[in-house]
């Protein structure tokens, strides 16, 4: 696999397992992922694909019954999985920050937004209260809140969904991280607010050179803003590449299926192209390719042999034995 020179985050062989009464479930099974500096990578998948577990594993926030069993998470060459917990605490917030789907469930409900921002800033950066207050107000303004002073004094429940998400982004940016992990940041928002937040993420990348991993089930959000995309299925990356390439020339049958299953505003197809069947039980994943029971290309080879993630074009990879047969078979 070729490695691009400007990689900020490099994940190799990441394995995360969850213990269940019926046995161990390997939710991530040897995940490899590269994120370039200043890039927005979309990590796409449906429920149970392992996309959120990936986010938590990168920050070592996996809690029992889950555990990280192996692999490397290299941030600027330093392996986060090998760091002592104390050093890792400095990495969280200062080098990597995370935002979530429900900001109001995450922000402290009994603390004013400004107080939390000031505290986070002072704990990491020191300085006077006045400095911290000025910085907090500047952050709130920089995420497009029209009345930063009002938000500074507000409690989370007094904010609308869109304002709360902006406030959480301000908090995530308090210590100028290099990498922002955004886990379904627009899923709970209205259509017109969703596009505001997506535009904000794009603007922060431009202005701050921020690197963003955007985790979502919504392919259109990826189409709107991501430079590269990685598609996950049943704990593995099944396709990755430049967003334009993956959308216009998908090289994995699952990606083809996902793109075709979207009801579109541009055309009224009579029937949607659905993907038959459902996500496999990871306790007993299918033999060979994990997608084979639902795949229109599956044959004996797919049932017998687990495919590797292969590079077909520069930076465009697919985990399909028959990827060559999908050339130019765009769903759009």
């Amino acid at each position, binding site marked *: 696999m070729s490695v691009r020179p400007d990689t900020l985050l490099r994940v190799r062989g990441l394995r995360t397992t969850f213990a269940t009464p019926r046995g161990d479930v390997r939710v991530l099974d040897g995940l490899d992922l590269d994120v370039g500096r200043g890039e927005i990578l979309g990590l796409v998948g449906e429920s149970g694909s392992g996309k959120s577990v990936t986010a938590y594993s990168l920050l070592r926030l996996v809690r029992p019954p889950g555990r990280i069993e192996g692999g490397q998470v290299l941030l600027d060459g330093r392996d986060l999985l090998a760091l002592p917990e104390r050093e890792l605490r400095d990495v969280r917030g200062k080098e990597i920050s995370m935002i979530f789907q429900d900001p109001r469930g995450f922000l402290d409900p009994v603390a004013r937004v400004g107080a939390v921002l000031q505290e986070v800033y002072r704990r990491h950066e020191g300085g006077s209260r006045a400095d911290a207050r000025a910085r907090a107000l500047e952050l709130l303004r920089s995420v497009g809140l029209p009345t930063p002073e009002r938000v500074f004094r507000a409690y989370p429940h007094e904010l609308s969904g869109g304002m709360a998400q902006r406030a959480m982004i301000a908090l995530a940016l308090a210590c100028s991280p290099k990498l922002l992990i955004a886990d379904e940041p627009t899923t709970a928002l209205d*259509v017109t607010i969703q596009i505001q937040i997506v535009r904000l993420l794009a603007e922060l990348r431009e202005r701050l050179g921020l690197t963003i991993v955007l985790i979502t089930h919504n392919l259109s959000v990826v*189409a709107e803003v991501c430079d590269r995309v990685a598609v996950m299925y049943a704990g593995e990356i099944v396709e990755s590449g430049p967003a334009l390439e993956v*959308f216009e020339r998908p090289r994995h049958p699952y990606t083809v299926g*996902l793109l075709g299953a979207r*009801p579109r*505003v541009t055309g*009224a197809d009579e029937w*949607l192209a659905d993907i038959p069947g459902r996500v496999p039980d990871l306790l007993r994943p299918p033999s060979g390719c994990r997608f084979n029971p639902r795949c229109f290309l599956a044959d004996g080879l797919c049932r017998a042999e687990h495919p590797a993630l292969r590079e077909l074009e520069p930076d465009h990879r697919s985990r399909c034995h028959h990827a060559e047969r999908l050339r130019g078979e765009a769903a759009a």
Partner: protein
Amino acid sequence: MSAREPLLRVEGLSKSFRVRVGGRRATLRAVDGVSFEIARGETVALVGESGSGKSTTALCLLRLEEPSGGRVVFEGTDMTALSRAELRRLRPRLQIVFQDPTESLNPRRTVGATLLEPIEAHGIARGGDARRRVAELLDHVGLEVEHARRYPHQLSGGQRQRVGIARALATGPSLIVLDEPTSALDVSVQAQTLNLLRRLQREIGLTYLFITHDLGVVRHLADRVLVMYAGQLVEEAPTAALFARPVHPYTRALLDAVPVESPAQRRRRLVLPGEPYSPIDPAPGCRFLGRCPWSAAECESPVDLYDAGGGHRVRCVGWAHGRVPEPEPEAIAS
């Protein structure tokens, strides 16, 4: 009931709630004078964002919320004038499917028992006939007979929503209100469910009121669209006409906010400032006024729905007076 009578006619439907804002008493006009009709066999989409009143409208139609005013005439009967007992007799004809099947199914009941209940309660069938009807319903929605013995937690999200649809079908309804029925589902499962709804409509001749915020779903399934903003209907049009020529400034913003389908289509867009507005003690004028790029003094007076031709109605005085320009064709996704 005459042949030309619509299946459902809603006239001036209103629902207010008393609320307190900073200790002061106020009135939230959640649904404010909403009127529309649905013809037999039609799929009408009711579109809006949080606080637009779309779900409250649905609950009032079924009288799961008591409307504060207006009339709902269903199959020729004024539902708002009925007693609880009379309403119960009409219930089998008018059903609802909710967004979250997990919350709307009893976790301690098997799928079979859940489906049997309405069939027996409304005296549709008993004993062996009722059980055969359950098997038929399961088959209709693409489930197997053995699913009747399962509990909701033993099913996937998509399967649970199929049970929710089967339960709505159990009593032989003519109209089904679908309240965001696929919002909680994954893309591939959503596609399966939308295809199922379309197939059922063809096979059984159902009429749907489809409540959603997803404009892709609207384009795919609806014959006609109603757009709500802050408790009022702001635009109504046949689906193709609405997407080709969104007239109300809010509808334009809503369509412009839909993310692109491929990175190849990225474009500059007019990002609408501000947030959806809660109609608490609303001023008499246009409720979109504060976010509208074309607002003017005349927008501060009450605004009627204007006829835009071909069943297209718009609540925008600026457009009616030629001040708000027609939408540019290239501004619309094509």
